[in-house]
């Protein structure tokens, strides 16, 4: 890739803008810490960290899924997913502020937890050294798969060796199982443990699928924005957009299914050890946020993505992706933040600053990684598949 390449120049420009936004955000966040204290800083920070780490984890999940099942749909977004996946291990650095101040966020690490019989029953799992060790282990597993798949992909760029496709599939199938398992526990530890009395087994899967959904929205939007330029303009067809739109639709319905099944089971049981999670998220103004999420993360995209005319039209699909990205931030906010307040909707100005601060840094890193490779896996024979090989009518 040469310096004169217009797409690379564009990506470089975005990288600089993201970095500037990130730095400005970080400065504002530091001001917020000085004005409002460490507790508020961390509360806003955790939600932004989860949204952007989740973006990378969603990319890794899509990458593992695509290598396992194949399909033309993944060829357009593969390099973006690889770049996003390579950002995951770097996020461990950004998790250090949380790890060094666990008691600020997690009530199980405070002295009063010693007098709480329920938390004491979980103490073998919920303790600081084990939590830190687990977190490091999660990042090691994620980092391993991001590194392994990126390396094979790079080798494919150089040699065009056809056996690499089989190698990537062989690693990804068990990897997908391990990834889902590990990520489920990561979300148990990082978010579910904010309310240590409460538990839900579907929680990890629900949150993970939400992250995959935001990664689909992000990568599809990027493909559409870059779609009219080289090298995408040579390969991108309406059928790719249709397939990607269908994938986003499928994950959106899966997210809704998992979210609703958790709600229905807790609602039907209506037991005092389970329902506080929803009481916190429905009362004191949070109910309106929940309703917004149902309308814009499920009902609206459900109707829009059912239509062929939306999935096959780049500009309309882009609009759905943007809607999805915005509502995903709201959903992560609705899941994380009510843990800190007793049934009262509180929005702090740092909640707006933090996603920009973390996001700016994440995007700068993402574009830096994206530029380090060709934007499409040009030597993967599946990229060239003839249009007639696609059956999705």
């Amino acid at each position, binding site marked *: 890739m040469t310096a004169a390449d217009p797409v690379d120049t564009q990506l470089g420009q975005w990288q600089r803008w993201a970095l500037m936004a990130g730095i400005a955000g970080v400065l504002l966040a530091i001001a917020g810490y000085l004005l409002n204290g460490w507790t508020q800083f961390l509360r806003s920070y955790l939600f932004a960290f989860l949204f952007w780490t989740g973006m990378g984890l969603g990319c890794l999940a899509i990458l593992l899924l695509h290598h396992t099942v194949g399909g033309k749909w993944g060829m357009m977004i593969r390099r973006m997913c690889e770049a996003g996946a390579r950002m995951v291990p770097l996020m461990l650095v950004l998790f250090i502020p949380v790890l060094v101040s666990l008691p600020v966020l997690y009530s199980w690490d405070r002295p009063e937890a010693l007098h709480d019989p329920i938390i004491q029953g979980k103490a073998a799992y919920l303790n600081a050294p084990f939590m830190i060790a687990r977190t490091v282990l999660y990042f090691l597993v994620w980092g391993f798969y991001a590194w392994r798949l990126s390396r094979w992909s790079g080798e494919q760029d150089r040699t065009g060796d056809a056996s690499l496709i089989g190698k990537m599939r062989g690693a990804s199938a068990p990897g997908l199982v391990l990834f889902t398992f590990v990520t489920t526990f990561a979300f148990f530890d990082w978010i579910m443990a904010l309310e240590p009395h409460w538990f839900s087994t579907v929680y990890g899967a629900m949150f993970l699928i939400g992250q995959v959904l935001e990664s689909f929205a992000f990568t599809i939007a990027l493909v559409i924005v870059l779609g009219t330029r080289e090298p995408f303009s040579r390969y991108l067809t309406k059928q790719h957009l249709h397939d990607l739109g269908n994938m986003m639709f499928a994950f959106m319905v899966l997210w809704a299914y998992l979210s*609703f099944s958790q709600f229905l089971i807790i609602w039907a049981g209506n037991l005092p050890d389970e329902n506080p999670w929803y009481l916190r998220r429905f009362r004191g103004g949070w109910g309106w946020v929940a309703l917004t999420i149902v309308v814009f993360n499920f009902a609206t995209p459900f109707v829009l993505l059912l239509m062929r005319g939306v999935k096959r039209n780049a500009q309309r699909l882009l609009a759905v992706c943007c809607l999805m990205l915005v509502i995903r931030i709201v959903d992560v906010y609705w899941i994380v933040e009510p843990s800190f307040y007793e049934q009262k909707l509180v929005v702090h100005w740092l909640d707006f600053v933090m996603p920009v601060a973390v996001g700016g840094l994440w995007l700068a890193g993402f574009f830096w990684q994206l530029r380090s490779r060709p934007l499409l896996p040009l030597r993967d024979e599946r990229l060239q598949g003839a249009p*007639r090989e696609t059956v999705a*009518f």
Partner: protein
Amino acid sequence: MHPQNRDAGEIADLYGLLAEFDTAEGLLAAAERAREEGFRRMDAYTPMPIEGLAEAVALGKTTVEKLVFVAGLLGATGGFMLCWWMTVVAYPHNVAGRPLNSWPAYIPITFESMVLIACLTALIGMLMLNGMPQPYHPVFNVKEFERASIDRFFLCIEARDPRFDREATREFLEGLNPLEVMEVEK
């Protein structure tokens, strides 16, 4: 018999003209040319689905999608009302002190019946709008047509197309580089 009458008689016996291609690309290009030429009553026959072909030979928007949408709405409404009627009207029962109209419990049934009715409508509607079941179709009168399910690609311009003309349409089809152009008897 009068020559003109015989001509008219033959046209009445003619289902259409069938052009045979040996590649999917050849067929797709031909179908697109035929559409540009103004032909609407035509159909393509291939061993596997080809992207873009449906748009090239179709008359326009299908009514299946509208049917499916309406059926989905009816299914959802029906499923919800069924649950409501059972738990509120037909068999009111106090379950753990909840109101009789406990709508969250209806949602799975509502969604499932929406999908069920929409899918059945899509399947049955597609088959009926395609004129199925159809035990007889004139294209099978052409011997070469059996390869449509093996390795050949066919485009048939039907005689009922207002622009159809036995000689001119044959010339047009021959200009599209087919392997052969054949007449299909009714």
